[in-house]
């Protein structure tokens, strides 16, 4: 449909539509500058896709004109950050743990650097809040004041360095035997001893004979060798948990305790000395210590 009607006042073509009888819409062409910019952006866009990495041929990306990539930018930024922090890391590397306790600025740096190290390496098991993945999961809560291998800064540094049952030559280790699997105790005996263990923290287990349980705890199974007569652990034997408090690494319900006694427990934490620098280990230990549980 060819239709041309020129508006007298503006000299512009109308669209030919009329509203309310005589109200007509102008078909004003786009301004020249706008059209020019439109074409320039198209040309620019095509050039841009060659200047910056974009075209993939097979598995290769066409080389870029300015040798730029966002990944390269990240590496540059990381290198720059490393350079900036290098003097402080060097200082941290040399510092003794006593220095850290007396130098507020260095301690602050270690705390912040440790937060980054923790986020990159520890979160998967210990959680973003350092409180374990969930209570009784077997991944220890690092924020409370219960430590199997010591909660002093020195202890934490060592645990991070060598790990637990990690295969490292200096690994921290101990053994909770599998009394059920080894046929040392039968199911009834395990139930009785579980009832006795629960009594340390003021709890009870229906159907468990506490007197018999106590005898097994002290004699047949000799649980007290590691966990102490009162269940509070033996300070010379690290890694044996306090059974009298409210914190249970593998769960404090009767069922979980029976499982622990039947099958034993062998939690593993990797050694980090091959993956982290001594300064990073110090830093992450400071961070963990300052979450609140550190001694």
């Amino acid at each position, binding site marked *: 449909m060819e239709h041309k009607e020129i508006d*007298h006042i*503006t000299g512009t073509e109308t669209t030919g539509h009329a509203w309310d009888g005589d109200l007509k819409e102008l078909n004003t062409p786009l301004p020249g500058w706008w059209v020019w910019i439109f074409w320039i952006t198209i040309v620019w866009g095509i050039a841009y896709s060659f200047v910056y990495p974009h075209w993939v041929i097979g598995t290769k990306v066409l080389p870029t004109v300015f040798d730029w990539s966002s990944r390269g930018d990240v590496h540059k930024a990381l290198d720059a950050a490393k350079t900036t922090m290098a003097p402080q890391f060097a200082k941290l590397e040399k510092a003794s743990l006593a220095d*850290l306790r007396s130098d507020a600025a260095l*301690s*602050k740096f270690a705390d912040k650097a440790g937060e980054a190290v923790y986020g990159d390496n520890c979160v998967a098991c210990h959680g973003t809040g350092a409180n374990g993945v969930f209570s009784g999961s077997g991944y220890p809560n690092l924020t409370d004041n219960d430590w199997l291998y010591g909660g002093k800064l020195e202890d934490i540094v060592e645990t991070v360095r060598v790990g637990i049952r990690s295969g490292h030559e200096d690994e921290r280790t101990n053994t909770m035997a599998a009394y059920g699997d080894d046929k040392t105790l039968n199911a009834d005996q395990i139930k009785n001893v579980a009832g006795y263990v629960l009594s340390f923290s003021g709890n009870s287990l229906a159907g468990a004979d506490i007197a018999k349980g106590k005898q097994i705890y002290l004699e047949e199974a000799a649980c007290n060798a590691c966990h102490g007569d009162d269940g509070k652990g033996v300070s010379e034997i690290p890694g044996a948990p306090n059974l009298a408090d409210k914190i249970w690494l593998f769960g404090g319900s009767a069922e979980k305790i029976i499982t622990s006694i039947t099958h034993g427990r062998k939690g593993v934490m990797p050694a980090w000395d091959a993956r982290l620098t001594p300064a990073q280990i110090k830093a992450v230990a400071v*961070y963990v210590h300052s979450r*609140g549980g550190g001694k």
Partner: protein
Amino acid sequence: MSDTTAQQAEPKSLFAEHEKIHPLKVSGLFRKIKWFFLVNMLAAYYIAPFLRWDRGLDAPNQMILFDIPHRRFYFGPIEIWPQEVYYFTGILMVASLLLFLTTAVAGRVWCGWWCPQTIWTDVFITIERWIEGDRRARIALDKAPMSLGKFTKRFIKHSAWMVISWWTGGALVLYFADAFELVRGLTNDVAIFFTKILTLQLPSAPENLVAWIWISIFAGTTYLMAGIAREQVCIYMCPWPRIQAALTDTEALNVTYRYDRGEPRYSIKKSVKLAAAGQAAGDCIDCYQCVWVCPTGTDIRLGMQLSCINCGLCIDACDNIMAKVGRPDKLIAFDTDLNIERRMKGEKNSFKPVRPRTLIYLFAMLISIVLMGWSLATRAITGINVLHDRNPLYVEEGDGSLRNGYTIRLLNMVRKKRSFTLDVTGPQGAFISKVSEGVFLFKKSDSGSFIVEIGPDTTRELRVLVILPASSTIPKSEPLLFTAKDTETGEQLSRSDFFKGPGK
């Protein structure tokens, strides 16, 4: 209007071609007033960044400084931190109200005397007049074909404009860095640039690149606004002429042509003849001086209008003519249309600067000033912010007690080292067990409160642990109040938060 008349109407463009304004030179009272403000305000603008103010060794000594990289704003003794930028809002509010007040009393004197657009345009026109001559010469030059003489004049004029534009931007950047150092830096950049050029090397990016970029932007806008666009900024771009209609009323003074005296206008000879014959003849001799001197090309005799910036140059022009033709002055004057009507009815002139509108503006302004001053005088020079640990919300210790962790940031806006005691009140028995930065532990005072030292003009972030010993009531969420107290002055700050627990 019917269809037929619309279609038969002459096709005409809705676009008005811009007519170049060539203001004529004028002298008189209002020209003097304009010179006075121009010279003083430009002097203040250029001198201010070089004024010093001693704030001690660890702070900049520039009186007015917007220190963007360090997030500090300095105005003499006042130091503004980023969280206090609402003071700027307060200054803008007072400035707006002052503008409203002056407009309600004496019209757009801001536009005519104080607006930077007016001041720079005035400077640019003056330079134009020095180089190209006054109105007639400039009109003639515009019409003349391009010649060596015309080109030379134009070249000198635009070069002079560019130099002034450059200095405008150059002065503005001095408010954002140490003025003396920046001037040295810029001079050095120029020296390096010319050394390279003279030794036929490619010039490298200057050291103060950011400053150069900003200077270029401001130089460009100054050249464009004051040199090229001029009165078009006032007439087409500026919102103020539109807003002023809402702020003024019939009692506000404005530059007014007193048509009661001026009309009907005739040439001198004719008006003398008519007056002798006993017919009406006004004082206006239609000489157009008022229009020619006007920087926006306004004909004030058409009444108050959007393009009039109320500068009063037409009053000077008209007074000069009236003196020459021996008629009384102030045919154009700061007056109101209401007065003209009064005089035409034979009533007396009256001017009421004190009326509800001006009083409201004045009081609103005073209240803003008092509130600002009061809040500035009593503002906290110390601050405390508390952030509760998000994860975990609480920690259950082996002995059944509960622990909550907080990040507390103390602010010390004073230029000296201070120490604070930190205390908490909350659920019965709750106490601060540890205040630390990493494994650096803060110590307790004799009274049992933790003591924290904060360096001058800085903040310190602390990790604070609060323990609630095991008890029969286990909280779900209880209010808690941290209090920091200056050990010397006793100044006290509190911040409330919550103590979280599993609840039972």
